[in-house]
Protein backbone atom coordinates (compact mmCIF):
# COMPACT_ATOMS: atom_id res chain seq x y z
CA UNK A 1 0.00 0.00 0.00
CA UNK A 2 1.13 3.51 -0.73
CA UNK A 3 0.98 6.15 1.88
CA UNK A 4 -1.45 8.99 1.16
CA UNK A 5 -0.65 11.15 4.15
CA UNK A 6 1.95 11.28 6.89
CA UNK A 7 2.06 13.77 9.73
CA UNK A 8 4.97 13.96 12.16
CA UNK A 9 5.40 16.05 15.29
CA UNK A 10 2.70 18.56 14.39
CA UNK A 11 2.42 21.51 16.75
CA UNK A 12 -0.05 24.36 16.51
CA UNK A 13 -0.83 27.11 18.99
CA UNK A 14 -3.32 29.96 18.89
CA UNK A 15 -1.82 32.59 21.17
CA UNK A 16 -1.49 31.03 24.60
CA UNK A 17 -3.52 27.99 23.68
CA UNK A 18 -1.54 25.00 22.46
CA UNK A 19 -4.05 23.06 20.37
CA UNK A 20 -1.76 20.44 18.84
CA UNK A 21 1.16 19.14 20.89
CA UNK A 22 3.02 16.80 18.62
CA UNK A 23 0.65 14.77 16.50
CA UNK A 24 1.85 11.77 14.46
CA UNK A 25 -0.45 10.19 11.95
CA UNK A 26 -0.18 8.02 8.84
CA UNK A 27 -2.94 7.20 6.40
CA UNK A 28 -2.68 4.76 3.52
CA UNK A 29 -4.42 5.15 0.21
CA UNK A 30 -8.06 4.00 0.19
CA UNK A 31 -8.07 4.01 3.95
CA UNK A 32 -10.84 5.56 6.04
CA UNK A 33 -9.54 6.99 9.28
CA UNK A 34 -11.69 8.50 12.02
CA UNK A 35 -10.45 11.04 14.54
CA UNK A 36 -12.45 10.94 17.75
CA UNK A 37 -12.08 12.94 20.92
CA UNK A 38 -13.78 15.61 22.98
CA UNK A 39 -14.46 19.07 21.61
CA UNK A 40 -11.27 21.09 21.71
CA UNK A 41 -9.04 18.03 21.51
CA UNK A 42 -7.58 19.33 18.22
CA UNK A 43 -9.40 17.27 15.57
CA UNK A 44 -10.50 20.23 13.46
CA UNK A 45 -7.20 22.03 13.78
CA UNK A 46 -5.38 18.90 12.64
CA UNK A 47 -7.54 18.70 9.50
CA UNK A 48 -7.16 22.43 8.81
CA UNK A 49 -3.38 22.09 9.10
CA UNK A 50 -3.36 19.21 6.62
CA UNK A 51 -5.31 21.37 4.15
CA UNK A 52 -2.86 24.22 4.92
CA UNK A 53 -5.70 26.48 6.01
CA UNK A 54 -3.73 26.80 9.23
CA UNK A 55 0.02 27.01 9.23
CA UNK A 56 1.60 24.51 11.59
CA UNK A 57 4.11 25.92 14.08
CA UNK A 58 6.28 22.82 13.96
CA UNK A 59 6.23 19.39 12.38
CA UNK A 60 6.01 18.02 8.88
CA UNK A 61 3.14 16.93 6.66
CA UNK A 62 3.67 14.75 3.61
CA UNK A 63 0.93 14.32 1.02
CA UNK A 64 1.78 11.42 -1.30
CA UNK A 65 5.38 11.72 -0.23
CA UNK A 66 5.65 15.44 -0.90
CA UNK A 67 6.56 17.62 2.05
CA UNK A 68 3.82 20.26 1.88
CA UNK A 69 5.09 22.16 4.92
CA UNK A 70 8.37 23.02 3.18
CA UNK A 71 8.85 26.64 2.17
CA UNK A 72 8.09 27.45 -1.44
CA UNK A 73 5.42 24.77 -1.81
CA UNK A 74 2.51 25.82 -4.01
CA UNK A 75 -0.24 25.71 -1.40
CA UNK A 76 -3.03 26.06 -3.93
CA UNK A 77 -1.78 23.01 -5.79
CA UNK A 78 -1.73 21.00 -2.55
CA UNK A 79 -5.29 22.03 -1.77
CA UNK A 80 -6.41 20.86 -5.20
CA UNK A 81 -5.55 17.30 -4.23
CA UNK A 82 -6.79 17.51 -0.65
CA UNK A 83 -10.49 18.31 -0.35
CA UNK A 84 -12.13 19.45 2.86
CA UNK A 85 -15.77 19.61 3.94
CA UNK A 86 -16.69 21.77 6.91
CA UNK A 87 -19.12 21.38 9.77
CA UNK A 88 -20.98 24.54 8.73
CA UNK A 89 -21.10 23.66 4.98
CA UNK A 90 -19.71 27.08 3.94
CA UNK A 91 -21.44 26.97 0.57
CA UNK A 92 -21.25 30.18 -1.44
CA UNK A 93 -24.69 31.71 -0.84
CA UNK A 94 -24.61 33.97 -3.90
CA UNK A 95 -24.12 31.10 -6.35
CA UNK A 96 -26.41 28.34 -7.51
CA UNK A 97 -25.71 24.79 -6.39
CA UNK A 98 -24.20 23.99 -9.79
CA UNK A 99 -21.98 27.08 -9.75
CA UNK A 100 -20.79 26.17 -6.24
CA UNK A 101 -19.64 22.87 -7.70
CA UNK A 102 -18.10 24.24 -10.91
CA UNK A 103 -16.38 27.36 -9.56
CA UNK A 104 -13.08 25.73 -8.65
CA UNK A 105 -12.87 23.43 -11.72
CA UNK A 106 -13.38 26.38 -14.07
CA UNK A 107 -11.22 28.89 -12.20
CA UNK A 108 -8.48 26.69 -10.80
CA UNK A 109 -8.29 23.75 -13.23
CA UNK A 110 -9.32 26.00 -16.15
CA UNK A 111 -11.83 23.44 -17.37
CA UNK A 112 -14.18 24.78 -20.05
CA UNK A 113 -17.47 25.85 -18.49
CA UNK A 114 -19.56 23.32 -20.43
CA UNK A 115 -17.33 20.39 -19.48
CA UNK A 116 -17.27 21.46 -15.84
CA UNK A 117 -21.06 21.74 -15.83
CA UNK A 118 -21.48 18.29 -17.35
CA UNK A 119 -19.28 16.88 -14.66
CA UNK A 120 -21.03 18.94 -12.02
CA UNK A 121 -24.40 17.57 -13.09
CA UNK A 122 -23.00 14.05 -13.03
CA UNK A 123 -21.67 14.54 -9.50
CA UNK A 124 -24.93 16.03 -8.27
CA UNK A 125 -26.85 13.16 -9.86
CA UNK A 126 -24.60 10.70 -8.05
CA UNK A 127 -25.46 12.42 -4.78
CA UNK A 128 -29.16 12.62 -5.67
CA UNK A 129 -29.16 16.40 -5.97
CA UNK A 130 -29.36 17.09 -9.68
CA UNK A 131 -32.88 18.53 -9.40
CA UNK A 132 -31.40 21.19 -7.09
CA UNK A 133 -28.68 22.28 -9.52
CA UNK A 134 -30.25 25.68 -10.20
CA UNK A 135 -31.39 26.41 -6.65
CA UNK A 136 -29.52 28.67 -4.27
CA UNK A 137 -28.08 27.01 -1.13
CA UNK A 138 -30.49 28.71 1.30
CA UNK A 139 -33.39 26.88 -0.35
CA UNK A 140 -31.90 23.50 0.59
CA UNK A 141 -32.09 21.49 3.80
CA UNK A 142 -28.96 21.14 5.90
CA UNK A 143 -28.39 17.59 4.69
CA UNK A 144 -28.72 18.65 1.07
CA UNK A 145 -26.38 21.59 1.63
CA UNK A 146 -23.79 19.32 3.17
CA UNK A 147 -24.03 16.91 0.25
CA UNK A 148 -23.54 19.85 -2.13
CA UNK A 149 -20.43 20.74 -0.13
CA UNK A 150 -19.20 17.17 -0.62
CA UNK A 151 -19.93 17.42 -4.35
CA UNK A 152 -18.07 20.73 -4.48
CA UNK A 153 -14.99 19.14 -2.91
CA UNK A 154 -15.24 16.05 -5.14
CA UNK A 155 -15.42 18.21 -8.26
CA UNK A 156 -11.71 18.94 -7.83
CA UNK A 157 -10.97 15.20 -8.01
CA UNK A 158 -9.08 15.14 -4.72
CA UNK A 159 -6.95 12.17 -3.66
CA UNK A 160 -7.78 12.71 -0.01
CA UNK A 161 -10.99 13.98 1.55
CA UNK A 162 -10.95 15.64 4.97
CA UNK A 163 -14.33 15.74 6.68
CA UNK A 164 -14.59 18.03 9.68
CA UNK A 165 -17.54 16.98 11.83
CA UNK A 166 -19.74 17.30 8.82
CA UNK A 167 -22.87 15.93 10.49
CA UNK A 168 -22.59 17.93 13.72
CA UNK A 169 -24.65 20.87 12.47
CA UNK A 170 -27.41 18.68 11.03
CA UNK A 171 -30.78 17.75 12.47
CA UNK A 172 -30.71 14.08 13.52
CA UNK A 173 -33.02 12.93 10.73
CA UNK A 174 -30.69 14.45 8.12
CA UNK A 175 -27.52 12.80 9.36
CA UNK A 176 -28.24 9.47 7.67
CA UNK A 177 -28.30 10.83 4.13
CA UNK A 178 -24.89 12.41 4.58
CA UNK A 179 -23.41 9.31 6.18
CA UNK A 180 -24.78 7.20 3.30
CA UNK A 181 -22.91 9.45 0.90
CA UNK A 182 -19.73 8.89 2.89
CA UNK A 183 -20.24 5.11 2.91
CA UNK A 184 -20.53 5.20 -0.85
CA UNK A 185 -17.35 7.25 -1.14
CA UNK A 186 -15.54 4.80 1.12
CA UNK A 187 -16.79 1.89 -0.97
CA UNK A 188 -15.36 3.56 -4.06
CA UNK A 189 -11.97 3.69 -2.41
CA UNK A 190 -11.69 7.37 -1.50
CA UNK A 191 -9.05 8.08 1.11
CA UNK A 192 -10.89 9.83 3.91
CA UNK A 193 -10.03 11.34 7.26
CA UNK A 194 -13.04 12.18 9.37
CA UNK A 195 -13.26 14.13 12.56
CA UNK A 196 -16.51 12.81 13.92
CA UNK A 197 -18.79 12.21 16.86
CA UNK A 198 -20.68 9.50 14.95
CA UNK A 199 -19.22 6.52 16.77
CA UNK A 200 -21.57 4.06 15.08
CA UNK A 201 -20.37 5.25 11.71
CA UNK A 202 -16.73 5.13 12.82
CA UNK A 203 -17.19 1.56 13.99
CA UNK A 204 -18.84 0.49 10.71
CA UNK A 205 -16.76 2.25 8.13
CA UNK A 206 -13.38 3.23 9.54
CA UNK A 207 -10.30 1.10 8.99
CA UNK A 208 -8.60 2.77 11.89
CA UNK A 209 -9.57 5.12 14.69
CA UNK A 210 -7.37 7.72 16.38
CA UNK A 211 -8.33 9.05 19.79
CA UNK A 212 -7.16 12.62 20.36
CA UNK A 213 -6.86 14.11 23.80
CA UNK A 214 -5.55 17.61 24.55
CA UNK A 215 -3.69 17.91 21.29
CA UNK A 216 -2.06 14.49 21.32
CA UNK A 217 -2.92 11.15 19.83
CA UNK A 218 -3.51 9.05 22.90
CA UNK A 219 -4.55 5.80 21.31
CA UNK A 220 -4.77 4.35 17.85
CA UNK A 221 -6.19 1.10 16.53
CA UNK A 222 -8.89 -0.69 14.65
CA UNK A 223 -12.45 0.30 15.58
CA UNK A 224 -12.73 -3.07 17.33
CA UNK A 225 -9.75 -2.33 19.57
CA UNK A 226 -10.71 1.25 20.36
CA UNK A 227 -14.39 0.74 20.98
CA UNK A 228 -14.34 -2.70 22.63
CA UNK A 229 -11.11 -2.74 24.56
CA UNK A 230 -9.57 0.72 24.87
CA UNK A 231 -6.24 0.61 26.67
CA UNK A 232 -6.06 4.18 27.93
CA UNK A 233 -8.15 5.34 30.83
CA UNK A 234 -8.95 8.65 29.05
CA UNK A 235 -10.29 6.74 26.06
CA UNK A 236 -12.48 4.63 28.30
CA UNK A 237 -13.82 7.73 30.05
CA UNK A 238 -14.53 9.43 26.74
CA UNK A 239 -16.38 6.43 25.36
CA UNK A 240 -18.38 6.05 28.58
CA UNK A 241 -19.50 9.66 28.29
CA UNK A 242 -20.48 9.09 24.67
CA UNK A 243 -22.47 5.99 25.57
CA UNK A 244 -24.14 7.83 28.45
CA UNK A 245 -25.14 10.56 26.01
CA UNK A 246 -26.78 7.94 23.81
CA UNK A 247 -24.50 8.57 20.88
CA UNK A 248 -23.37 4.96 20.50
Amino acid at each position, binding site marked *: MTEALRVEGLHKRFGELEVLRGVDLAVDEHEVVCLIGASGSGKSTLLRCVNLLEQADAGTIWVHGQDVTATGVNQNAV*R*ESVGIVFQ*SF*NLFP*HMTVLRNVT*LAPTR*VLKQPRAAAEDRGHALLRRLGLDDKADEYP*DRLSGGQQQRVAIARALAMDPDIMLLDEITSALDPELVAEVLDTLRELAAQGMTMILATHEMGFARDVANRVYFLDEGRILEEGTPEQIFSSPKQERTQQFLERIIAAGRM
Partner: protein
Amino acid sequence: MGDDLTSGGPPMGSRRSRITGQPGRREGTRGVTIAVVSTAVVFVAIVFAVTNSPYWPEVKDFFFNREIFLDSLPQVLAKFRRNILYFCIAEVFVLGLALLLAVMRSLRGPVFTPIRGMAIIYTDVFRGIPTILVVYLLAFGIPTLQIPGLPNSPTFWAIVGLILSYSAYVSEVYRAGIESVHPSQVSAARSLGLSRGQSLRHVVIPQAIRRVVPPLMNDFVALQKDTAIIAFVVAVPEAFKQGQILKAASFNMTPLVVVSLVFLIITIPMTRLTDYLVERERRRRQSGSAV
Protein backbone atom coordinates in the same frame (compact mmCIF):
# COMPACT_ATOMS: atom_id res chain seq x y z
CA MET B 1 -51.40 36.97 6.75
CA GLY B 2 -52.16 40.63 7.36
CA ASP B 3 -55.49 40.46 5.51
CA ASP B 4 -57.69 40.03 8.53
CA LEU B 5 -56.02 43.00 10.17
CA THR B 6 -56.35 45.53 7.42
CA SER B 7 -59.59 44.48 5.73
CA GLY B 8 -61.66 46.33 8.32
CA GLY B 9 -59.83 49.58 7.79
CA PRO B 10 -60.15 52.19 5.08
CA PRO B 11 -58.68 51.34 1.66
CA MET B 12 -55.71 53.58 2.36
CA GLY B 13 -54.87 51.59 5.50
CA SER B 14 -51.56 50.23 4.29
CA ARG B 15 -50.40 53.64 3.13
CA ARG B 16 -51.36 55.31 6.36
CA SER B 17 -49.51 52.77 8.38
CA ARG B 18 -46.25 54.27 7.21
CA ILE B 19 -47.15 57.45 9.02
CA THR B 20 -47.74 55.54 12.22
CA GLY B 21 -44.28 54.11 11.72
CA GLN B 22 -45.50 50.53 11.80
CA PRO B 23 -45.72 49.26 8.24
CA GLY B 24 -48.08 46.35 7.89
CA ARG B 25 -48.44 45.90 11.62
CA ARG B 26 -51.62 45.76 13.65
CA GLU B 27 -52.84 49.05 15.10
CA GLY B 28 -56.22 48.52 13.52
CA THR B 29 -58.71 51.03 12.23
CA ARG B 30 -58.58 53.03 15.42
CA GLY B 31 -54.83 53.55 15.18
CA VAL B 32 -55.14 54.67 11.57
CA THR B 33 -57.89 57.12 12.48
CA ILE B 34 -55.84 58.60 15.28
CA ALA B 35 -52.83 58.95 12.97
CA VAL B 36 -54.87 60.66 10.24
CA VAL B 37 -56.69 63.04 12.55
CA SER B 38 -53.66 64.05 14.61
CA THR B 39 -51.57 64.59 11.48
CA ALA B 40 -54.29 66.72 9.90
CA VAL B 41 -54.69 68.78 13.06
CA VAL B 42 -50.96 69.45 13.34
CA PHE B 43 -50.66 70.38 9.67
CA VAL B 44 -53.64 72.72 9.71
CA ALA B 45 -52.28 74.39 12.84
CA ILE B 46 -48.86 74.92 11.28
CA VAL B 47 -50.25 76.23 7.99
CA PHE B 48 -52.61 78.54 9.86
CA ALA B 49 -49.84 79.86 12.09
CA VAL B 50 -47.44 80.46 9.22
CA THR B 51 -49.88 82.08 6.80
CA ASN B 52 -51.19 84.36 9.51
CA SER B 53 -47.85 85.53 10.74
CA PRO B 54 -47.18 89.25 10.12
CA TYR B 55 -44.50 88.88 7.45
CA TRP B 56 -46.00 85.96 5.55
CA PRO B 57 -46.91 87.98 2.39
CA GLU B 58 -43.30 89.19 2.07
CA VAL B 59 -41.91 85.72 2.69
CA LYS B 60 -44.35 84.20 0.24
CA ASP B 61 -43.49 86.67 -2.48
CA PHE B 62 -39.74 86.36 -1.94
CA PHE B 63 -39.53 82.54 -1.82
CA PHE B 64 -42.70 81.25 -3.45
CA ASN B 65 -43.57 83.70 -6.21
CA ARG B 66 -45.90 81.87 -8.58
CA GLU B 67 -44.93 83.62 -11.82
CA ILE B 68 -41.23 83.44 -11.19
CA PHE B 69 -41.68 79.80 -10.22
CA LEU B 70 -43.37 78.88 -13.49
CA ASP B 71 -40.94 80.99 -15.45
CA SER B 72 -37.78 79.48 -13.94
CA LEU B 73 -38.86 75.83 -13.69
CA PRO B 74 -38.18 74.88 -17.35
CA GLN B 75 -34.88 76.78 -17.39
CA VAL B 76 -33.66 75.10 -14.23
CA LEU B 77 -34.84 71.68 -15.40
CA ALA B 78 -32.96 72.13 -18.68
CA LYS B 79 -29.73 72.81 -16.80
CA PHE B 80 -30.36 70.02 -14.33
CA ARG B 81 -29.49 67.57 -17.09
CA ARG B 82 -25.89 68.63 -16.56
CA ASN B 83 -26.07 67.73 -12.87
CA ILE B 84 -27.30 64.30 -13.83
CA LEU B 85 -24.51 63.95 -16.37
CA TYR B 86 -21.83 64.99 -13.86
CA PHE B 87 -23.34 62.67 -11.29
CA CYS B 88 -23.29 59.71 -13.68
CA ILE B 89 -19.69 60.32 -14.74
CA ALA B 90 -18.50 60.80 -11.16
CA GLU B 91 -20.43 57.80 -9.82
CA VAL B 92 -18.87 55.36 -12.29
CA PHE B 93 -15.35 56.43 -11.30
CA VAL B 94 -16.22 56.59 -7.61
CA LEU B 95 -17.50 52.99 -7.63
CA GLY B 96 -14.37 51.74 -9.39
CA LEU B 97 -11.76 53.73 -7.47
CA ALA B 98 -13.44 53.06 -4.12
CA LEU B 99 -13.49 49.31 -4.74
CA LEU B 100 -9.81 49.40 -5.66
CA LEU B 101 -9.04 51.29 -2.42
CA ALA B 102 -11.09 48.87 -0.34
CA VAL B 103 -9.33 45.86 -1.85
CA MET B 104 -5.92 47.51 -1.33
CA ARG B 105 -6.81 48.04 2.29
CA SER B 106 -8.05 44.51 2.85
CA LEU B 107 -4.81 42.88 1.63
CA ARG B 108 -3.09 40.96 4.40
CA GLY B 109 0.54 40.17 4.90
CA PRO B 110 3.71 42.21 5.34
CA VAL B 111 4.42 42.42 1.59
CA PHE B 112 1.34 44.57 1.12
CA THR B 113 2.06 47.01 3.95
CA PRO B 114 2.97 49.91 1.60
CA ILE B 115 -0.14 49.38 -0.51
CA ARG B 116 -2.33 49.15 2.57
CA GLY B 117 -0.64 52.25 3.99
CA MET B 118 -1.28 54.23 0.81
CA ALA B 119 -4.97 53.32 0.87
CA ILE B 120 -5.26 54.30 4.53
CA ILE B 121 -3.56 57.66 3.97
CA TYR B 122 -5.79 58.33 0.97
CA THR B 123 -9.03 57.65 2.84
CA ASP B 124 -7.89 59.57 5.92
CA VAL B 125 -6.91 62.62 3.87
CA PHE B 126 -9.88 62.83 1.53
CA ARG B 127 -12.45 61.96 4.15
CA GLY B 128 -10.99 64.63 6.39
CA ILE B 129 -11.09 67.55 3.95
CA PRO B 130 -14.45 69.20 3.14
CA THR B 131 -15.52 68.13 -0.35
CA ILE B 132 -16.00 71.74 -1.44
CA LEU B 133 -12.39 72.50 -0.51
CA VAL B 134 -11.04 69.57 -2.55
CA VAL B 135 -13.10 70.70 -5.53
CA TYR B 136 -11.94 74.30 -5.08
CA LEU B 137 -8.26 73.35 -4.81
CA LEU B 138 -8.34 71.29 -7.98
CA ALA B 139 -10.67 73.41 -10.11
CA PHE B 140 -8.84 76.65 -9.41
CA GLY B 141 -5.41 75.22 -8.85
CA ILE B 142 -4.54 72.90 -11.68
CA PRO B 143 -5.86 74.92 -14.67
CA THR B 144 -3.86 77.93 -13.42
CA LEU B 145 -0.61 76.02 -13.80
CA GLN B 146 -1.28 75.28 -17.48
CA ILE B 147 0.59 71.99 -17.21
CA PRO B 148 1.11 70.53 -20.67
CA GLY B 149 -0.71 67.23 -21.17
CA LEU B 150 -3.26 67.88 -18.46
CA PRO B 151 -6.77 69.18 -19.16
CA ASN B 152 -7.29 72.82 -18.28
CA SER B 153 -11.05 72.69 -17.86
CA PRO B 154 -12.08 73.73 -14.34
CA THR B 155 -15.24 71.63 -14.71
CA PHE B 156 -13.10 68.58 -15.43
CA TRP B 157 -11.06 69.18 -12.29
CA ALA B 158 -14.15 69.93 -10.24
CA ILE B 159 -15.55 66.51 -11.16
CA VAL B 160 -12.17 64.95 -10.35
CA GLY B 161 -12.42 66.61 -6.95
CA LEU B 162 -15.83 65.07 -6.33
CA ILE B 163 -14.53 61.66 -7.40
CA LEU B 164 -11.49 61.84 -5.11
CA SER B 165 -13.55 62.93 -2.14
CA TYR B 166 -16.40 60.46 -2.57
CA SER B 167 -14.09 57.53 -3.34
CA ALA B 168 -12.75 57.87 0.17
CA TYR B 169 -16.22 57.61 1.71
CA VAL B 170 -17.43 54.84 -0.57
CA SER B 171 -14.26 52.77 -0.06
CA GLU B 172 -15.10 52.63 3.65
CA VAL B 173 -18.55 51.34 2.76
CA TYR B 174 -17.04 48.62 0.57
CA ARG B 175 -14.53 47.77 3.27
CA ALA B 176 -17.29 47.27 5.82
CA GLY B 177 -18.94 44.93 3.31
CA ILE B 178 -15.75 42.96 2.69
CA GLU B 179 -15.13 42.57 6.40
CA SER B 180 -18.71 41.41 6.96
CA VAL B 181 -18.17 38.32 4.81
CA HIS B 182 -17.42 35.48 7.21
CA PRO B 183 -13.82 34.15 7.13
CA SER B 184 -15.23 30.63 6.63
CA GLN B 185 -16.18 31.70 3.11
CA VAL B 186 -12.54 32.43 2.37
CA SER B 187 -11.52 29.12 3.98
CA ALA B 188 -13.97 27.30 1.71
CA ALA B 189 -12.67 29.06 -1.38
CA ARG B 190 -9.00 28.58 -0.49
CA SER B 191 -9.58 24.93 0.39
CA LEU B 192 -10.75 24.37 -3.19
CA GLY B 193 -7.46 25.67 -4.51
CA LEU B 194 -8.57 29.21 -5.35
CA SER B 195 -5.84 31.79 -4.86
CA ARG B 196 -6.22 34.74 -2.52
CA GLY B 197 -7.16 36.98 -5.44
CA GLN B 198 -9.63 34.51 -6.91
CA SER B 199 -11.31 34.07 -3.52
CA LEU B 200 -11.65 37.82 -3.20
CA ARG B 201 -12.99 38.24 -6.71
CA HIS B 202 -15.43 35.34 -6.94
CA VAL B 203 -16.48 34.80 -3.34
CA VAL B 204 -15.88 37.81 -1.10
CA ILE B 205 -16.54 40.86 -3.27
CA PRO B 206 -19.82 39.68 -4.84
CA GLN B 207 -21.24 39.02 -1.38
CA ALA B 208 -19.81 42.25 0.03
CA ILE B 209 -21.36 44.39 -2.71
CA ARG B 210 -24.76 42.79 -2.23
CA ARG B 211 -24.68 43.72 1.42
CA VAL B 212 -23.61 47.32 0.98
CA VAL B 213 -26.06 48.35 -1.72
CA PRO B 214 -28.23 50.30 0.76
CA PRO B 215 -25.38 52.36 2.27
CA LEU B 216 -23.95 52.84 -1.23
CA MET B 217 -27.30 54.31 -2.25
CA ASN B 218 -27.01 56.80 0.60
CA ASP B 219 -23.73 58.00 -0.83
CA PHE B 220 -25.35 58.17 -4.29
CA VAL B 221 -27.90 60.60 -2.89
CA ALA B 222 -25.17 62.68 -1.27
CA LEU B 223 -23.10 62.77 -4.46
CA GLN B 224 -26.16 63.72 -6.49
CA LYS B 225 -26.68 66.71 -4.19
CA ASP B 226 -23.03 67.67 -4.16
CA THR B 227 -22.92 68.14 -7.92
CA ALA B 228 -24.17 71.61 -6.92
CA ILE B 229 -20.72 72.27 -5.46
CA ILE B 230 -19.40 72.43 -9.01
CA ALA B 231 -21.55 75.52 -9.56
CA PHE B 232 -20.06 77.16 -6.51
CA VAL B 233 -16.53 77.02 -7.83
CA VAL B 234 -16.88 76.86 -11.58
CA ALA B 235 -18.93 79.03 -13.94
CA VAL B 236 -20.65 76.07 -15.48
CA PRO B 237 -24.36 76.30 -16.28
CA GLU B 238 -25.88 73.57 -14.16
CA ALA B 239 -29.08 73.83 -12.12
CA PHE B 240 -27.75 75.69 -9.08
CA LYS B 241 -25.85 78.21 -11.20
CA GLN B 242 -28.93 78.74 -13.35
CA GLY B 243 -30.92 79.38 -10.18
CA GLN B 244 -28.38 81.96 -9.07
CA ILE B 245 -28.56 83.70 -12.43
CA LEU B 246 -32.35 83.82 -12.34
CA LYS B 247 -32.27 85.01 -8.74
CA ALA B 248 -29.94 87.85 -9.63
CA ALA B 249 -32.21 88.87 -12.50
CA SER B 250 -35.43 88.86 -10.46
CA PHE B 251 -34.14 89.81 -6.99
CA ASN B 252 -36.22 86.90 -5.79
CA MET B 253 -35.34 83.59 -4.11
CA THR B 254 -38.00 81.56 -5.89
CA PRO B 255 -35.65 80.22 -8.61
CA LEU B 256 -33.45 78.69 -5.91
CA VAL B 257 -36.50 77.11 -4.28
CA VAL B 258 -37.18 75.64 -7.71
CA VAL B 259 -33.63 74.25 -7.80
CA SER B 260 -34.22 72.69 -4.39
CA LEU B 261 -37.42 71.05 -5.61
CA VAL B 262 -35.69 69.68 -8.69
CA PHE B 263 -33.05 68.05 -6.49
CA LEU B 264 -35.77 66.58 -4.31
CA ILE B 265 -37.46 65.02 -7.33
CA ILE B 266 -34.36 62.84 -7.70
CA THR B 267 -33.19 62.43 -4.13
CA ILE B 268 -36.49 61.56 -2.40
CA PRO B 269 -37.23 58.54 -4.62
CA MET B 270 -33.63 57.43 -4.16
CA THR B 271 -33.95 57.74 -0.39
CA ARG B 272 -37.22 55.76 -0.41
CA LEU B 273 -35.60 53.10 -2.59
CA THR B 274 -32.72 52.91 -0.11
CA ASP B 275 -35.15 52.44 2.78
CA TYR B 276 -36.88 49.70 0.83
CA LEU B 277 -33.58 47.93 0.12
CA VAL B 278 -32.48 48.20 3.75
CA GLU B 279 -35.79 46.73 4.88
CA ARG B 280 -35.59 43.92 2.33
CA GLU B 281 -32.02 43.08 3.35
CA ARG B 282 -33.06 43.06 7.01
CA ARG B 283 -35.95 40.67 6.31
CA ARG B 284 -33.80 38.47 4.13
CA ARG B 285 -31.19 38.16 6.88
CA GLN B 286 -33.76 37.34 9.50
CA SER B 287 -35.31 34.58 7.42
CA GLY B 288 -31.99 33.23 6.18
CA SER B 289 -30.10 33.20 9.45
CA ALA B 290 -30.25 29.41 9.72
CA VAL B 291 -26.77 28.86 8.35
